[in-house]
């Protein structure tokens, strides 16, 4: 067995073991997924930081490039800094830009481009006034119509309905006030009815209709909770649901299973995320548990979709929703790699096979048998074990994404208190200006609500101006208590104001490390793990090391990532004298801040360190060294690498 196969086998086994030890009781405990592994922080996916995009081209770029779990993550979170308030113009900007780029990308990316405005519109809906909401629904329906009938594309449709479910459960605010409107509800109904029409050509709509059906189920529950406030909307949703139930048909059993999943689930906390997330989190569930069974059902649905793709690729199934043999084959590869990366193994198939019943025809089972019999080869050819596998554990542990960072969410209660905010603001008023481009999204994500930019910040914070509140949020998050949130959001983000670590007074209700409070953070993670990339640190970052004499302030301690390789930017420092070099090495071993700094040596008094450590080293009084950029050979064009090798006399 090759190393690669060994590795994948190991990954698969690890996940399965992880699943064995995870225990969840009911849907109420979905948040238990979020018990983070203390040891796996280095696999933190970079996606959260990319949520901070604020320009249409950035949003589109991230969205269409995302694959696997990252794309699901975007569907759920979208881009809070891009849509922080009632910014309908941003949705329009996205629509215009995506239209312009449509001719420049391949088919798969075209489907993504097409849906970006619809996804933005879905997430914008709960924030918009009625006039704008009308326009947003038009944007959504236009994209839907294009993908459903004008130029059929089930991938685009899948995203659209996945995002509608995601928007409803994005946060409690959406749950309580998002109004999709009768036309959108009708569109969901049409998708499901089309799938149920007993014509093989619409079979490929299984994934799309499952997503649309999930939206209807979820939205219905939300509307029921609103009582009299949403009677008309509820009526239209229930009419759609009843219409679909009445239609029945050969394929209704798929939707029926989903219908049953929602039985007994009523409130926001009980709502399962859209089904891809369930598959992502499957490896964290206990075999045999209700959660595993639900996830297994959706895995089965994905496997059936693969079988349909296979039929399409073999020209045995004709459908306007299949986009040619090549795309079908490509989609199958992606689907299989995705399932393999998230721990679906041949043994799982053995178990799943027993529950197939009449859902998948005999030929489909044979096809899937053959895939799992050649699991290693198929997974390898599909590209499993790549970057997605690297982040799989991180993603699986963060399901559901809309309840991201539960500890921070709980801690945000303290931030909600006027006293805490005032305390933070008071401290900020005395400190230097803090960059705040990203500050909007932090409370948005942490508090689970979007901030209305056009008014004062939020009801509970009318006392604070927007600017001050932005600063406050960043500063509060910069304390060690909020290190995880800060880290997740800042990690690998260019120009993130990481160095802007300010010490603030300890607000009431906060417990902070170093201030005698309990420290709920996981493992050795502290905010400074991502804190000092900013060049400005040399001028401003001394706060990190300042142990304030005030009992209320919190000394923050630098902590480095465990490996040099985990830093994207590195610098080689070339020292001119042996004495200076030896002195610096001594400091590395003795200084509290620099101890643990990962580094490498290149001989000739050259040492390679994370770029963000340079300012810190300078702060320690070392200035007589030359900085050299370090370039990874992986980022060099082959011809340039070859030239370097030649110049260096390497073969």
């Amino acid at each position: 067995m090759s190393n690669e196969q060994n590795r994948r086998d190991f990954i698969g086994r690890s996940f399965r073991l992880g699943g064995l030890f995870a225990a969840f009781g009911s849907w109420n405990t979905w948040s238990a997924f979020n018990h983070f592994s203390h040891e796996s922080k280095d696999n933190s996916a970079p996606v959260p930081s990319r949520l901070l995009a604020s320009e249409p081209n950035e949003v589109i770029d991230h969205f269409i490039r995302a694959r696997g779990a990252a794309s699901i993550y975007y569907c759920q979170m979208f881009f809070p800094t891009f849509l922080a308030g009632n910014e309908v113009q941003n949705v329009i900007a996205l629509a215009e830009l995506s239209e312009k780029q449509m001719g420049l990308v391949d088919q798969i990316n075209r489907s993504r481009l097409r849906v970006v405005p619809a996804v933005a519109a879905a997430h914008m809906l709960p924030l918009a006034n009625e006039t704008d909401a009308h326009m947003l629904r038009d944007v959504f329906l236009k994209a839907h119509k294009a993908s459903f009938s004008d130029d059929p594309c089930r991938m685009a449709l899948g995203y659209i309905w996945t995002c509608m479910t995601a928007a409803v459960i994005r946060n409690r605010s959406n749950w309580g006030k998002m109004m999709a409107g009768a036309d959108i509800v009708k569109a969901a109904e049409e998708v499901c009815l089309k799938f149920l029409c007993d014509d093989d050509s619409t079979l490929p709509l299984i994934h799309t209709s499952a997503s649309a059906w999930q939206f209807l189920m979820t939205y219905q529950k939300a509307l029921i909770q609103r009582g009299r406030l949403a009677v008309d909307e509820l009526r239209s949703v229930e009419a759609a649901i009843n219409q679909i139930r009445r239609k029945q048909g050969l394929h209704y059993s798929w939707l029926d299973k989903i219908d049953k999943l929602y039985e007994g689930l009523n409130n926001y906390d009980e709502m399962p995320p859209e089904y891809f997330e369930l598959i992502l989190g499957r490896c964290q569930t206990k075999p045999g548990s209700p959660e595993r069974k639900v996830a297994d059902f959706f895995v089965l649905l994905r496997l059936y979709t693969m079988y349909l793709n296979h039929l399409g690729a073999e020209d045995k199934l004709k459908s306007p929703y299949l986009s040619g043999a090549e795309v079908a084959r490509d989609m199958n590869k992606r689907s299989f790699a995705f399932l393999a990366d998230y721990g679906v193994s041949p043994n799982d198939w053995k178990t799943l096979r027993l529950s197939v019943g009449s859902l998948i025809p005999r030929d489909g089972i044979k096809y899937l048998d053959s895939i799992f019999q050649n699991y290693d080869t198929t997974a390898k050819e599909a590209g499993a074990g790549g970057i997605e596998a690297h982040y799989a554990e991180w993603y699986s542990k963060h399901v559901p994404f809309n309840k991201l960072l539960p500890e921070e969410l709980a801690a945000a209660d303290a931030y909600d208190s006027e006293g805490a905010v005032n305390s933070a603001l008071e401290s900020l008023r005395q400190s230097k200006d803090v960059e705040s481009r990203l500050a909007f999204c932090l409370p948005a994500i942490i508090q689970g609500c979007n901030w209305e930019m056009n008014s004062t910040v939020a009801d509970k914070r009318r006392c604070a101006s927007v600017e001050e509140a932005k600063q406050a949020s960043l500063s509060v998050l910069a304390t060690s208590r909020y290190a995880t949130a800060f880290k997740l959001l800042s990690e690998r983000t260019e120009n993130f104001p990481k160095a802007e670590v300010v010490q603030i007074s300890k607000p009431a209700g906060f417990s902070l490390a170093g201030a005698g409070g309990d420290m709920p953070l996981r493992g050795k993670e502290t905010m400074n793990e991502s804190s000092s990339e900013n060049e400005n640190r040399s001028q401003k970052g001394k706060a990190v090391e300042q142990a304030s004499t005030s009992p209320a302030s919190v000394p923050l301690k630098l902590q480095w990532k465990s490996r040099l390789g985990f830093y994207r930017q590195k610098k080689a420092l070339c020292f001119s004298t042996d004495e200076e070099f030896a002195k610096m090495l001594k400091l590395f071993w003795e200084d509290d801040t620099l101890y643990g700094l990962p580094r490498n040596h290149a001989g000739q008094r050259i040492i390679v360190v994370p770029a963000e450590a340079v300012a810190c080293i300078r702060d320690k009084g070392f200035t007589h060294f030359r900085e050299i950029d370090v370039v990874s050979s992986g980022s060099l064009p082959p011809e340039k690498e070859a030239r370097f090798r030649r110049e260096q006399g390497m073969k």
Partner: protein
Amino acid sequence: MPGGNENRIRVVFNLPMNGDRQENAVNHVIEYLKQQRSKKIGIDGFTHSEIYPPVFQGYWWDTEPPLSDDSPKLVEDNLVLFVVDYLKPNAQIHFNLFGEIQKLKSEIAAIYGRFADAEQEVWVVSFGIARQR
């Protein structure tokens, strides 16, 4: 020429890395190895494990009886592992291969003596390998 094998001698050695002075020594060993390339003694590259934090740990028994206790002490060493694949001498390059390896070992000992405490023993091993072309 593509295809076939190229016989080499792989030299593996472990350098202790337990403090700033030994780290300085490691830096000088790297420098020494880099200098070898131009000497035409069959070195055209080398590999080492991460310097800091060192990922290898070794244990050995200090068999020299200490003054107060006769039982040997188990000593823990953080180590940086080096791998150098020497070309074998051939028609193009002539050198004393095992003499060079011995020189390498002596140089490492000298560097450690100069920058850190002299090591009792630097573990250097060599064995033949075939590189696929």
